[in-house]
């Protein structure tokens, strides 16, 4: 097959797998009258038969491609972390309802998922139908919270196999959230670190781009200790430094897959500098991503 051939050139008409491979991986410089060529080369008796074969082959090829992409581990992880969030959110919502309801019946009614678990664990001897309904709702709530815990365990187990460096640096759940927000590890690896920094803060970002608001300093990476645990004055710098290293980690995970512990060490050092805990040694390890464009915080760290 050359760059002037169609997908069917030299193909055994009965070899469906080979046809699928050709559709998926083949290429040509330019379109040609493929139906006409297929008929004259004897692959098909007439154009109707050609189109029939083409229909079969394109459907099988598209199905195989979709299957392969959607079954990829990072795509499965995305569904798991989203399901985890759904279960947690719904469990919390139902727990509020349980607390509201229970407050009308019991003096000692508590709040939250913990109380729903407590109520669900109580043996209910009451024959009162509304008490039974409340009890059933509490059981349902507790089961949903259990499911959320299960999913969290699954995410914690799976993320390090999908993205070892990112999981080590961000923690498995935040790593999974970043992958989920960008739509895949490949997409995350292609993001600039300024985008990674504000993933999850899209509303604030677009408000800023419309000119109505200041730029957001951080998106979901706020949940990372290195951002949340840094003084608010220096959080922007910390978020920028963290996003820079997370981006590098995602790229290493996507393109090589090897674990590189030195990345974590570089980040630790950099954050320590920003927080002003060390007097030197933080600079020089820079990769450009963490240079301080607006100079809002490193000055203190570097000079102290």
């Amino acid at each position, binding site marked *: 097959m050359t760059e002037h*051939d169609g997908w069917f050139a030299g193909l055994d008409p009965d070899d469906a797998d080979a046809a699928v491979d050709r559709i998926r991986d083949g290429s040509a410089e330019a379109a040609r009258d493929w139906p006409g060529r297929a008929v004259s080369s004897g692959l098909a008796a007439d154009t109707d038969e050609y189109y029939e074969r083409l229909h079969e082959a394109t459907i099988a090829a598209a199905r195989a*491609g979709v299957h392969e992409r959607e079954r990829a581990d990072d795509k499965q992880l995305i569904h798991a972390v989203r399901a985890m969030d759904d279960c947690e959110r719904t469990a919390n919502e139902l727990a509020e309802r349980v607390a509201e309801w229970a407050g009308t019946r019991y003096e000692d009614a508590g709040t939250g998922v913990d109380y729903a678990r407590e109520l669900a664990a109580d043996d209910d001897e009451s024959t009162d139908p509304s008490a039974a309904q409340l009890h059933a709702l509490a059981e349902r709530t507790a089961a949903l919270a259990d499911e959320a815990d299960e999913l969290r365990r699954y995410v914690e187990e799976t993320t390090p196999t999908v993205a070892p460096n990112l999981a080590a640096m961000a923690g498995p759940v935040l790593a999974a959230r970043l992958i989920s927000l960008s739509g895949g590890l490949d997409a995350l690896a292609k993001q600039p670190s300024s985008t990674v920094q504000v993933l999850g803060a899209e509303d604030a970002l677009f408000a800023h781009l419309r000119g109505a608001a200041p730029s957001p300093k951080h998106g979901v990476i706020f949940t990372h200790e290195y951002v949340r645990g840094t003084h608010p004055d220096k959080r922007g710098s910390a978020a920028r430094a963290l996003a820079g290293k997370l981006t590098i980690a995602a790229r290493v995970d996507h393109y090589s897959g090897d674990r590189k512990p030195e990345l974590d060490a570089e980040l630790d050092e950099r954050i320590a500098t920003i927080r002003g805990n060390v007097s030197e040694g933080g600079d020089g390890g820079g990769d450009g991503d963490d240079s301080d464009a607006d100079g809002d915080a490193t000055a203190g760290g570097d000079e102290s």
Partner: protein
Amino acid sequence: MSDLPTGVERREFDGVERLATRGEPVYGEPTDGEWRAWNPDRSKLGAMLELGMDTGLVGGETVLYLGAASGTTASHVADFAGPTYAVEFAARPVRDLLDAAEPRSNLFPLLKDARKPETYAHVVEPVDVIVQDVATRGQAAVATTNAQFLGEDGRLLLAIKARSEDVTRDPSAVFEDVCAELESTYEILETERLSPHHDDHLGVVATPR
């Protein structure tokens, strides 16, 4: 108002006259016998026909559809056109596109990137019409690189989505830029805003130079 292509008719559904084609239902649209309503609010090409743009479509054409998504519009096109090659790069919508393509022997789904025509030129034959509805930046470039598939008197039916190029810019300025870029390869025959069916979209009919 220009004529509708053969195979597309205005028919009454629940007392309202709507565009319709004949084929298997795809997305829960209202049907009347074998006819199914074509919703211009969910389809840019549907909106172009609804607004009376002169698409040059007569029915039975060979079509390259770029950005087929779940196949909502592509299925209607396949109902009245000839061989229809539907290119879509996102895996999730192609799952739905496959359901639309299965009962349509002339609809060929291709899980390919519309920015890389060489990856499907070994499958797609020269076509009479390119329908393009891709929601990425560089919509003019997609139309330009795919011009090679169009015959001399072919038609490009393009829906430009301003927000895909730049969310912050004024849509009219975006349309102007995209059209200017198209002019190197295409002669633009007609443009019209697709409101009220689609906000910030411009319908374009063009032919290769």
